[in-house]
């Protein structure tokens, strides 16, 4: 069994030692004094809006990415101005539950320090965008004042832990949600760097000796690590896209434990056949008491065995495929000191959100709203932000972020319900039911103009593409059909496009690879159907398929199943 002292970057045993050099990021982590680096110096260097190169990697562990406005990149170069650097700040919300006052404060921070918008992410986090370096510290400090934080929201660590936001009816939501929060806390880095840098906590005299990371060690994980809890029949957290997932299993109405799934992940790299999206593998059942130990040991296996020489091959899914699933299960059992039980049957029915009003067992109300692109903002057409702020001011329940970038106004009292309805009506905020089934099953990552990885548009473009696809859906009577469509600006897969019924992955400005054949429970990888299509070609490719779907589908057959049954794409083994 590995301990903190004897592990090394390459794996526990000498036989597995790789002779390939470590990535640059590994050296940066190693020399960072537990994620400090020179961030504090970078922050006060006011000749540039950027951080020093090494600090741009470390800042991720603190919950922020350095980005730049790519819309103005070339004009600023001519203007003798550096790129318009700003920071995305990701706010962790374990299990996705925030209070109205937290919600209001986040919106306000977006107005004061960000670009006036708040993004609800596909992993139940809030994101602020466009925060300039000179405002970064006070923004993060004020986020912490709300009792939310940003530590480990990004970076090579366990990130925001997801949990179905609306499973009250299952009777076990509270227990599972509590497990999600406990796991999140258990796997939060211990370094005091975050408090020193952002919260001005006193510097520990000799930080090198004082700090320790009992779970991570000083080089943390080889790559990001994503974790989720799902309560069947809902899979709105897309459990199979996570490095580690816990599927709640009930026994006689009580939470008995979890089926454990490992090795899911979406990212791939164009032109690199060694990279691929992968559905998490079901490895067995554990009693609920073991959830912290299992999560810790899975993290440690990845810590000790993940690839630290190539970040593109560093996720847990590649570790498992390289060493074998059997090896992984054995290793986990060895470290745990007990055997996993056989996995227990369960059924997922959907990875979509349950839109609209629903009544809780305690007589309160939930309202799940469709938030296009997850973006809370005021446009000329729709003052969504204003409306939600008004609601938050009178709401005495809570807010829940869903894994599909949507928002639930939860635990509304019967007396508040008509007032909230009135606000929504006054601002013309529609219930999801007025939209097409495709639109309310759409997901898009941020992409241009701020994501440095994006090759193409996503969030800014998908709504208008759906406008055009809707015309064809209507011609075929499919407008109410739930067809999931997910778009990303690059192959890294933040909006989980590879398990959508229709996946669009950006290749270059205006061009996308089209994937078909995901299912409605998020448990099947879709298949590349056509490459490098422009808008016209996307519409041209989908139109005949929609037509034959409307004519030839078996009753209630989902779109993703239809394209496979008809051989439009063939399911990969």
């Amino acid at each position, binding site marked *: 069994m590995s301990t903190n002292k004897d592990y090394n970057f390459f794996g526990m045993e000498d036989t597995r030692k790789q002779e390939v050099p470590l990535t640059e990021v590994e050296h940066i982590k190693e020399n960072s004094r537990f994620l400090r680096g020179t961030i504090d110096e970078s922050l006060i260097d*006011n*000749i*540039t*809006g950027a951080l020093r190169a090494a600090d741009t990697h470390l800042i991720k562990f603190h919950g922020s990415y350095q980005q730049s406005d790519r819309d*103005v990149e070339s*004009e*600023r*170069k*001519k*203007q*003798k*101005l*550096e790129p*318009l650097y700003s920071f995305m700040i990701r706010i962790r919300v374990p299990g996705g539950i925030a209070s109205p006052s937290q919600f209001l404060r986040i919106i306000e921070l977006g107005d004061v320090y960000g670009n006036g918008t708040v993004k609800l992410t596909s992993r139940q986090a809030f994101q602020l965008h466009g925060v*300039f370096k*000179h405002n970064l510290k006070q923004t993060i400090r004020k986020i912490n004042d709300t009792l939310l934080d940003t530590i480990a929201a990004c970076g090579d660590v366990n990130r925001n832990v997801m949990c179905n936001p609306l499973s009250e009816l299952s009777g076990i939501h509270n227990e599972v949600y509590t497990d999600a929060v406990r796991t999140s806390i258990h796997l939060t880095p211990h370094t005091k760097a975050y408090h020193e840098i952002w919260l001005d906590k006193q510097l520990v005299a000799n930080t090198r000796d004082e700090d320790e990371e009992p779970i991570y060690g000083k080089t943390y994980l080889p790559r990001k690590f994503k974790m989720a809890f799902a309560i069947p029949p809902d899979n709105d957290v897309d459990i199979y896209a996570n490095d580690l997932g816990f599927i709640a299993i009930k026994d006689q109405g009580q939470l008995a434990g979890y089926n454990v799934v490992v090795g899911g992940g979406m990212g791939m790299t164009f032109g690199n056949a060694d990279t691929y999206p992968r559905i998490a593998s079901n490895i067995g059942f554990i009693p609920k008491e073991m959830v912290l130990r299992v999560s810790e040991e899975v993290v440690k296996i990845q810590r000790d065995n993940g690839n630290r020489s190539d970040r593109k091959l560093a996720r847990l899914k590649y570790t498992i495929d390289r060493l074998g699933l059997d090896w992984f299960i054995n290793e986990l059992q060895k470290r745990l000191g007990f055997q996993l039980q056989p996995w227990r049957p369960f059924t997922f029915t959907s990875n979509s959100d349950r839109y609209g009003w629903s009544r809780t067992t305690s007589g309160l109300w939930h309202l799940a709203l469709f938030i296009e692109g997850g973006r809370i903002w005021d446009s000329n057409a729709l003052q969504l932000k204003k409306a939600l702020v008004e609601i938050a001011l009178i709401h005495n329940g809570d807010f829940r972020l869903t894994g599909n970038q949507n928002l639930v106004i939860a635990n509304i009292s019967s007396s508040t319900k008509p007032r909230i309805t009135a606000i929504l009506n006054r601002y013309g905020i529609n219930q999801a039911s007025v939209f097409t089934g495709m639109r309310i099953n759409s997901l898009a990552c941020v992409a241009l103009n701020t994501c440095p990885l994006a090759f193409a548009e996503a969030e800014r473009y998908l709504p208008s593409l759906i406008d055009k696809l809707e015309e064809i859906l209507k011609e075929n009577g499919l407008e109410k059909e739930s067809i999931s469509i997910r778009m990303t600006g690059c192959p890294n897969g933040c909006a989980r496009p590879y398990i959508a019924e229709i996946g669009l992955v950006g290749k270059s400005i205006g061009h996308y690879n089209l994937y078909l054949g995901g299912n409605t429970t998020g448990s099947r990888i879709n298949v590349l159907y056509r490459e490098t299509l422009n808008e016209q070609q996307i519409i041209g490719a989908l139109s005949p398929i929609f037509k034959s779907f409307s004519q030839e589908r078996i009753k209630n057959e989902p779109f993703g199943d239809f394209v496979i049954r008809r051989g439009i794409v063939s399911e990969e083994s």
Partner: protein
Amino acid sequence: MSHVLSQAAPVNRSDARLPEVGLPERNNPVEAIVVNKIRLNGRGSEKYTYHVELELPSDQIAYEPGDSVGIIPANHKSLVSEIIHLLRETPETPVIFGNSSGSLGNVLTNEVELTKLTRENLESYRQFSRDKALNELSQDLNKTSALLQGCTWADLLRLFPGRINAGEFLAIARPIQPRLYSISSSARAYPGEVHITVRQVSYNLHGKEHFGICSTYLADLPETEDRVRIFFETNEVFRLPSDDTDIIMIGPGTGVAPFRAFMQEREDREASGKNWLFFGDWRFTTDFLYQTEWQDWHKKSLLHRIDLAFSRDQKQKIYVQHRLVEKSRDLFKWIENGAKIYVCGDMKNMAQDVNKAFVDIISREGGISVEKAQEYLKTMRKQKRYLEDVY
């Protein structure tokens, strides 16, 4: 950053490397071609600062860092038409103005000073206006100064209407005045070119939007291939010191222009003296003029220190003088070590605030009284170690 021309100083070239070529003076301006014009302020800025690159007719024209270039501008179309309208004339009316003749429209555009009025202009115009208020006003020196501030001929004709025709108007108006700009390039680094840094001036007066004549003229120029009449004015005082002397440059806003020339020159000469810049403006993200160039010099260790003050990035306004005081200990070390101080930009406020900041610094760090510190600074001025190019 324009100021109306004063008498040109005699030319005295000190640079041995470049052949001695007389600089085109005010009396014989040359035509330069606009080869590049860029707005330096990023999208969303309220400021419009332009970097204009002019190609000179010869690359032997060897101005020096610290020199100014004079631009002979043309008046804005809208101002010219308003005046023609107020004179109840038409643009085609043939007129004579001094030695030149042509249509009223052309003459007003290119020959007549319309935006900077003198007391004499006002006095001459008084006889044509029967306006009582103007009569009373002209008795009061303070009131006339206030009136003349930013006032154009169009304002005067509109506010105090009088019976005046084109011929009479041209008899009392004065010739168009060139505007001077501190050059922002080094002739060594860019032979055959001269760069200027100009902020478009606009202000509201008497309920109307007013535009600075020359800054607007330059701002409105097409980005390339237009011709501008220019000449040079040397500045024998605002000169770089010997290569091994340290310099402290304080140039907020367009006051930074000559320091860009200084840095180009010192880079080209491989000068060993250290360089320290204090720059300020409204906002870091959009108004950091020549940001990438300062960054490059900083990276190459040519610009040893740079301190910035962006007044609108936080609640309380921070200006260059605040940054100076923050760095007082190091500044005093540099001064004691023989550094020369250069201040360029706004005369009314900035130059005085900076002067005061240095008195504070010298008094505090030198452990001497404020009076003694003032004397210390006075001596520096006498020794030409504290130099200003303010306007």
